[in-house]
């Protein structure tokens, strides 16, 4: 099975990837073909499940995950162990669901795809551990509909795992029952928001839900539900196999966040692709691994982790790529996949493109997002055509502010506001150039009516 159809792939050779340092990718084959069950088991696969299900309690798993501080790799960076500890369990509480968020639709992001297409058993193993820790009754993999290749790989892997007794009744003789179903989405970005994902999974409109209550209290079908990103869950087996300290040590001095991160780069660089690196490496190293910018152009700006993160400047390239550092710069680590913009590219056009995407993908539930984003798009389009008017930039400033955190129902609009606000801050001149020169007053408003 070839994956050479796209060039955004792992750029690390087998020699570099080792079990001790590359928990996510060390098993991957050089030819990029999917790892079957036999090969996975041969490479220490399902060892963590066997160990944990027979010798550890669910609370032990939560404690280890908490200690390892695996921060959510979907972009929010919330501690997975903490999330698991908040799931309601115990007498009188029904067993709920463990949902893997594989609806990877963040612009510029293609990391989960690698894991899903080439190593689905790692995810399944992670999900079994997560389900065990959270008393989950059933698991769902909510997969982006366009990931046809991944769907094929997962379907196959689920069959293999079921046949081998890793899923179903009494897993590995532990008495623990758990199974997983694959659910392919119908293509809405908002399904990446965990509560919208749950609604979509239930067959409802993919609108986010208000929190509290959190999914861990009342999620899918009102049952306690844990939603974790693919990469997050894929970290669980090695954490449980080698322990929290080992995991923490992977990033060494680079960052307080533990483990590795599947980083990547897209844009006009020599070798776009993915690298599994200790979390906290600086952006410059990543850019160097990608061979620098193509055609000798200079770097203008970059997005650290997808379309919903704020623009950063070349001077920020030396900062560690971890959740807190990037947050302090006014952006977000997001998915950790850099989008690189060179000096020839228009930030205005890029932002317009992004906002068009976010406006289209708004679920339409809350007013600022539903009606504010299309206004942003129309203002940006006017600026692009050189038909902007005086006050348009201030209106964009205001919209970016009004779409910010706390004012909208979910994080979709704040995510859309971040590139807008940062672009207006760093590249205001590009926007200003879109404002048409003022027409002569007499023509503009020959008969003022009711002016303030």
């Amino acid at each position, binding site marked *: 099975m070839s994956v050479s159809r796209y060039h955004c792939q792992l750029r690390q050779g087998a020699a570099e990837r080792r079990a001790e340092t590359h928990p996510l990718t060390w098993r991957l084959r050089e030819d990029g073909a999917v790892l079957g069950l036999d090969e996975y088991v041969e490479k220490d696969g399902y060892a963590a499940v066997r160990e944990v299900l027979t010798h550890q309690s669910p609370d032990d798993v939560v404690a280890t995950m908490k200690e390892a501080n695996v921060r959510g790799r979907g972009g929010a960076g919330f501690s997975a162990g903490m999330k698991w500890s908040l799931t309601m369990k115990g007498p009188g509480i029904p067993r709920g669901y463990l949902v893997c968020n594989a609806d990877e639709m963040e612009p510029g992001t293609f990391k989960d795809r690698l894991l899903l297409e080439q190593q689905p058993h790692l995810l399944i193993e992670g999900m079994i551990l997560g389900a065990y820790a959270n008393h989950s009754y059933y698991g769902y993999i909510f997969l982006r509909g366009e990931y046809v290749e991944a769907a094929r790989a997962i379907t196959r892997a689920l069959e293999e795992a079921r046949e081998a007794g890793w899923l179903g009744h009494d897993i590995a003789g532990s008495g623990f029952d758990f199974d997983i179903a694959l659910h392919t989405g119908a293509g809405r970005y908002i399904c990446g928001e965990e509560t919208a994902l749950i609604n979509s999974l239930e067959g409802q409109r993919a609108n986010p839900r208000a929190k*509290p209550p959190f999914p861990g209290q009342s999620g899918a079908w009102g049952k306690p539900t844990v939603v974790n990103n693919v990469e997050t869950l894929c970290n669980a087996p090695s954490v449980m196999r080698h322990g929290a300290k080992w995991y923490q040590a992977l990033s060494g001095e680079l960052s307080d966040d533990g483990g590795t991160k599947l980083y990547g780069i897209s844009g006009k660089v020599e070798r776009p692709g993915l690298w599994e690196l200790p979390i906290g490496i600086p952006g410059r190293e990543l850019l160097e691994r990608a061979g620098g910018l193509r055609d000798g152009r200079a770097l203008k700006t970059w997005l650290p982790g997808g379309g919903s993160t704020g623009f950063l400047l070349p001077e920020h390239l030396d900062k560690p790529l971890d959740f807190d550092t990037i947050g302090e710069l006014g952006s977000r680590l997001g998915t950790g996949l850099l989008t690189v913009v060179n000096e020839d590219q228009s930030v205005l056009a890029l932002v317009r493109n992004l906002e068009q995407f976010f406006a289209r993908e708004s*679920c339409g*539930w*809350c007013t600022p997002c539903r009606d504010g984003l299309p206004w942003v798009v*129309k203002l940006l389009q006017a600026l692009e055509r050189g038909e902007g008017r005086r006050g348009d930039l201030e209106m964009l400033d205001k919209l970016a502010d009004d779409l910010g955190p706390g004012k909208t129902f979910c994080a979709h609009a704040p995510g859309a506001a971040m590139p807008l606000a940062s672009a207006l801050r760093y590249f205001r001149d590009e926007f200003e150039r879109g404002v048409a020169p003022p027409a002569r007053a007499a023509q503009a408003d020959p008969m003022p009516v009711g002016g303030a």
Partner: protein
Amino acid sequence: MATIHVDGQRYDVDGADNLLDACLSLGLDVPYFCWHPALGSVGACRQCAVKQYQDEDDTRGALVMACMTPAADGTRISIDDDEAREFRASVIEWLMINHPHDCPVCEEGGHCHLQDMTVMTGHDRRRYRFRKRTHRNQDLGPFIAHEMNRCITCYRCVRFYRDYAGGEDLGAFGANDNIYFGRHREGVLESPFAGNLTEVCPTGVFTDQTHSARYTRKWDLQFAPSLCHQCAVGCNISPGERYGELRRIENRYHGEVNRFFLCDRGRFGYGYVNRDDRPRRPEWRSDRDDACVTLEVDAALDRGADRLRSARRVIGIGSPRASLESNHQLRALVGNDAFSTGIAAAEQRCLAVMQALNHGCGLPTPTPREVERHDAVFILGEDLIASAARIGLAVRQAAQARRETLAAERDIPYWNDAAVRTLGQDRYHPVFIAYPTATDLDDVTAARFALAPDDIARLGFAVAHEIDDNAPAVAGLEPAMGEAARDIAARLLAAERPLVISGGSLGSEAILEAAGNVARAMARRARRGGLLLVRREANSTGLAMLGGEPLEWALDELASRRADAVVILENDLFQRLPAARIEAALDAAETVVVLDHQRTATWERAHLGLPAASFAEADGTLVSLEGRAQRFFQVFDPAYHRPETRIRESWRWLHALRADLLRHEVADIALDAVTRDCARACPALGAIVDAAPGADYRVHGLKLAREPHRYSGRTAMRAHLDVSEPRVPQDPDSPFTFSMEGYNGFDRPREEVAFAWAPGWNSPQAWNKFTDEVGGHLRAGDPGVRLLAPRPGAYAYATSIPEGFRGREDEWQVMMLPRLFGGDETSSRAAPILARATPATLVLATGDATRLGVSDGDRLVLASHTGSLTLPVRREATLPLGVVGVPAGLAPAPVAGEWARLAAARTEGPGEEGRP
């Protein structure tokens, strides 16, 4: 209780509420759209943003949505904060981006929540300069007009329609700024509560099509506090009139009855008031075959009095759709021993059983609002959505309230609507329905039992026995029914507030007695619960309390010539008993006087017809099925715009006729005196004088205005008749003026509110200003007095348990099935109701249909000793074998319980057709 601080002021509030609810209840204005007192909070529109501070020292604060934030003790917020104000202004600016700004041609204009909120937030400049998004509209049937371009996407419509009322055919489609609220394709909205969309929608997407046809702005309508006359629930309504026509009916908030919602029969069934063919002048024919002539009032009274005076004996036939005052006045005219209620004997026996049970079963009768707070419901022999729709909607809320209980266990506040529904899923409080056909509440039932009427009774008796051993056991009980009875009994006993609902719809006393036994058993064993009994017509309960002979007695008196004159009050006898019997009686009578506001078959047989006022032109008192006596007030004077009109309230006609008959001077009479008389004559009705304030009620020394203060055109609207404007009609009967002059405010509590308006609040949301708390009770108390209370005494069990139902070889037992649209005498005369009614069909078990060789749509002749009827068949798989369902509202109607023969119709013969 909790103390919150709003803009530096301390307030004591109910800490269980959210901040928006709390602020509105305090009378503070916070704009909102997606929140609705009956629908809870979802946080979609972001309009109610306020600034919340952590503590006294927090000066920065953060924006929160008031509707999604608990009013917890110590909460500090600011509504006035600049950032909050600016954000709210932004929200309304976004909402208005695609709005067409078509207020001048929009039916919502003038009572539009969007207008009110736009003004409240100060949005008056448009900065969006790009193209608007547009939608296509749908034809949603005869009731509701659809204009999606006005939509501000608050999601209230679907939340009411689907989540609250259980409808399925209205949805949200699309995404981003292209959300569409409509049906998956054009067609009639199926929910019988669709009309509430016109009030739930904060703008003009869903508007009242019956109103559009003869449109008038709210401020130009004349209103009065009135009561829906289309069933026995007693919903409060605000009918609006212009140019002598009713233009619309709007919900009038009553904290214990209808609260925010009406059914579509009540809202859209008023067209009979406006019919062109209504009798407007007295009509006279000396002999039945003569052409009729119209008379002046005095001549009509004289001739009527002459004929009655010369009669040997005059009897009166009253009506359960007329007021207590009119019925009482008729009884005063003919004497106590010559008065019939106008109700057929079988129905009257059921009414008597119901009244006895309400007094004597040991359980109280809940108000419709209280119905919503019961946690187990057992319904025997009623299809509530068809027979008392508003009660059906309340039962749905009772079932769904389980979610709130479950949510409370997880500390999810009851108002967090989406979270409550998510947690609750399809877990409901147990509702059991025993009814032959499917009902619109089946989706929330724990179990439905499709049984023949006698078997419904047996199930009820068995449940009573399971609850209390002392209740008689059912002999020969089928094991399955025994098991069902045990389950129902256990669930009722496990409940904190169990409720038994039954009624007279199937015409079965046995079912009522069975329901009574369940209630008695609950009263004895559990000492808690309620019993609600459904009556058919607006004043059925009142007539049963007033008393009188059944209709058959009156017909016999006439046919056997023991009486030779009859006065018939607002009653089409042909709707009640077979035509032959009525014709025989009326043919025998020397004098037939009919008072009615409709040209009915009975009216056509009158020697003297007196044009009566409909509810819109009259005042009076009705008693609803919960035993609540309520007053309805005259909306307009019909003679103001049609001077030739001689319409009078029936009680006024009858008073004058009596005076003429006794050769007294006809003295003026006013409502209060008649009501007092009636109360004095019938001690059970003694409290009706307190049902509403008398005509001498004043606020600040003023009468109450029927017209909003912006009412326009008064001096011109009659100019085509007469250039000099007459004095406005005077109203001796009520505290209301036919004018904008008078008190119309909200600050002085009053229970009778003609129209809801408060400064800045022109839409129905203005009701929040009249209630003690949002969604609570009117500050002056909810209107009406309760007359039915359980009396202590020995609750003897009923013991006559019917045999199990057995079908016959070639006969089917007739069941009369109530219908919401088309099943009620007066609303069936309104064109929109006829357009909405589904075609009348005979309902037959699939097995029986197969035996007869007919399938859906085939025409079948039903023949019984009362006549024959030809209708298409509708098969229902779960209907018991051996019974046939006949839709109510057809004449000639077979009698419930009788046995009829069925045969496939040979030809499409006209003349046998059931009249809808």
